[in-house]
């Protein structure tokens, strides 16, 4: 939430000395508000004003990093309530909980499953983002041992869950240098937990208590807690409003997002961690709740169960919700060769919306039939959307045929259109004299059967 030029002006010396290069302090303030000038250009601004301006330009929801290196997870820094207003930036980190009461062999097996899980979707690798190790035993030594064992096997970001500062410290000592998320500071233990977070340079989750469904007072208490922790020197925090029901979570997370963005409440401007499995009656319900938290508005989601059939749909949902609405994922237009086509191989055409491309290319590859795939620049729109918007029409397809040198590579003049735009074939025959325009299947899944009959 940026300050207006007038707000900034109030913090400047108001001497109109011109040393910043602007004619007046007000003009300089306006440039600052538009981010066309740097505050450092003013030699006389007070330290107090500098601090106030820095605080005001900080993002309304703090960006928090868990873990280190390539696999670190960054969450927060969101700026809107609805993805169509701009976009959602940092998809929630999906963590899986491993308790220190789980026998070592089972923990190892679970860890193996999680770390070896990975699946590509529209060109992007989907995976589990982190591990939440819980001190369920109450025994600090058992906790430390489990943390050490997990850390030895993976560089995935860690979250350490322990009720007592003693156990947490034992765990943290085994996780030196990997910046794990500490869960959690509460009204009772925040001093000790904050000290541990400061000492280990680790982000700290702060848990509130939700006693009534409207809960405004409870959020006030949570804000009070984060203010105290911040005063104790810990900046990177993650919030747990302490509610576990489906309805209550939606309300609390919506209220937190509104307070951070619309009220500019810094003390609640942190990403949120949720535990969809706690208080769920089944694994299925855990999955549905996790999906609710992906849409509205979790930063880190801790699952109690890992299973590919659950995680793959959740990660796909996260990918959907966090796709930039202004910039659909696209591939470059061009003539793609699949399975080494020869001049006489079939020629299919479709759009450069990446989901379209990967669905079609995947099916063509799966069919085993060498094929030319002409990808038209539809500005990242799917076949039907592109057609409706005039971005995937006969003229554009004809232009691509020539632009990408199809006649030089393909010996026949047979072009297969997606079934959804069968209506384009007449126009396209006019645009491409001498070509035979064929209508292919409406769905990518039916392409292998179609290619079998192609001649």
């Amino acid at each position, binding site marked *: 939430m940026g300050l207006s030029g007038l707000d900034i002006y109030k913090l400047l010396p108001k001497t109109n000395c011109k040393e910043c290069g602007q004619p007046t302090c007000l003009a300089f303030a306006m440039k600052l508000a538009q981010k066309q000038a740097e505050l450092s250009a003013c030699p006389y601004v007070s330290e107090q004003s500098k601090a106030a301006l820095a605080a005001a330009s900080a993002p309304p929801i703090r960006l928090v990093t868990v873990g280190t290196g390539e696999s670190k997870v960054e969450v927060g820094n969101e700026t809107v309530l609805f993805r169509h207003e701009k976009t959602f930036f940092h998809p929630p980190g999906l963590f899986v909980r491993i308790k220190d009461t789980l026998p070592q062999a089972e923990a190892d097996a679970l860890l193996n499953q999680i770390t070896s899980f990975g699946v590509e979707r529209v060109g992007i690798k989907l995976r589990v983002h982190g591990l939440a190790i819980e001190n369920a035993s109450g025994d600090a030594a058992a906790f430390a041992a489990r943390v050490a064992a997990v850390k030895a096997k993976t560089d995935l970001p860690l979250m350490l869950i322990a009720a007592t500062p003693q156990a947490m410290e034992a765990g943290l000592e085994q996780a030196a240098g990997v910046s794990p998320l500490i869960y959690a500071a509460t009204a009772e233990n925040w001093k000790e937990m904050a000290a541990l977070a400061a000492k280990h340079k680790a982000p700290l989750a702060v848990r509130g208590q939700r006693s009534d469904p409207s809960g405004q007072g409870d959020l006030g208490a949570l804000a009070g807690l984060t203010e105290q922790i911040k005063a104790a020197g810990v900046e990177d925090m993650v919030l747990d409003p302490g509610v576990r029901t489906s309805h209550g979570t939606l309300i609390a997370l919506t209220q937190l997002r*509104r307070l951070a963005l619309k009220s500019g409440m810094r*003390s609640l401007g942190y990403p949120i961690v949720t535990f969809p499995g706690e208080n769920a009656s089944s694994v299925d319900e855990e999955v549905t709740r996790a999906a609710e938290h992906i849409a509205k508005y979790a930063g880190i989601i801790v699952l109690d169960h890992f299973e590919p059939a659950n995680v793959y749909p*959740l990660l796909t949902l996260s990918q959907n919700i966090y796709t930039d609405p202004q910039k659909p994922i696209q591939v470059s237009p061009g003539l793609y060769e699949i399975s080494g086509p020869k001049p006489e191989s079939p020629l299919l055409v479709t759009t450069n919306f990446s989901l379209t491309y990967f669905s079609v290319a995947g099916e063509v590859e799966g069919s085993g039939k060498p094929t030319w795939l002409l990808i038209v620049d539809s500005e990242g729109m799917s076949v039907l959307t592109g057609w409706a918007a005039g971005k995937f029409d006969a003229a554009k397809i004809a232009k691509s045929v020539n632009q990408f040198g199809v006649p030089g590579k393909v010996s026949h003049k047979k072009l297969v259109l997606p079934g959804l735009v069968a209506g384009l074939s007449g126009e396209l025959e006019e645009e491409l004299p001498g070509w035979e325009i064929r209508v292919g299947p409406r769905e990518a899944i039916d392409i292998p059967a179609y290619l079998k009959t192609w001649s």
Partner: protein
Amino acid sequence: MTPAVQVPIEKWTGKIREITLGATAAEGGTRTRTVTVGGENTLPFLSFEGTMPHAPVVALEVQDHYPNEWSPLLKESWGDVLHDPAAWAKKAEAVGADLIVFKLISAHPEGDNTDAAHAAATVKAVLAATGLPLVVLGPGQADKDNEVLVAVAEAAKGERLVLGNCEDKNYRTVVAAALAHGHLVVAKTPIDVNLAKQLNILITDMRLDLDRVLMDPTTGALGYGLEYSYSVMERLRLAALTGDGMVQQPMICTVGEETWRAKESKVNQGVPAAWGDWIKRAIHWEVLTASSLLLAGANIVVLRHPDSVARIKQTIAGLMAD
């Protein structure tokens, strides 16, 4: 030290139209119960800000012809009833559907090309087999849609059916049939706020009250355009709440039809092991698409798998109250 927290509350000026589907004997129909949707004056489930008098409801899809192209998972789950629309509808009611979406696919000219009399007769048979309200959809080909829906509207006079789909190029005949026989309509548009609004205006111009119109803003399945539907629905709902009277319609989403076409649901051959167990994955695909759209403002989700019904009912109950 507890800072004062004043949660921002939006002062919405609009509310969603309350629409009742189906009519009981007392109301001139034969339904054993009716279903009312809409009436909310805030975003979905935000009870701290407004009220949502009617929880969203779950419909199951029934077809008048054996669904050859359906996933084997659906065929196994439903079994023999797929050959008999009346038995299918009865079973749908038994597994917990709030209403039935009945599709007259056999009327399609490229399919069996069955006629208006056949459509009227099968709708009568389904009405006799279930007491739930009915949405009746044509085969999706304009001329045949008009032909069969007119006959159905007449045969089921007084039942407060929902007839569909009205689309921008073909809505007049269906709207006229609904007007003449006391039914409602579905207005379907392709994932676009302005097109949705425009079709509602065209329908109003024919003097059908908007409290007899449901909007279908078109569903994209999880992984296949869900985000487009999600955002268009959020935008429609925000426009409705800020007072645009032409989009204050309850929304219906054809979740089952879209998700069961997705490769993840339809097949299990040659797919990555990381996709996981087929049936679990397929049900999640349907349930997660539905639950996400409920958060975006869906009032009716139309499903295909019986096991998804209980999952979504649990989700709705959980979101409605603690």
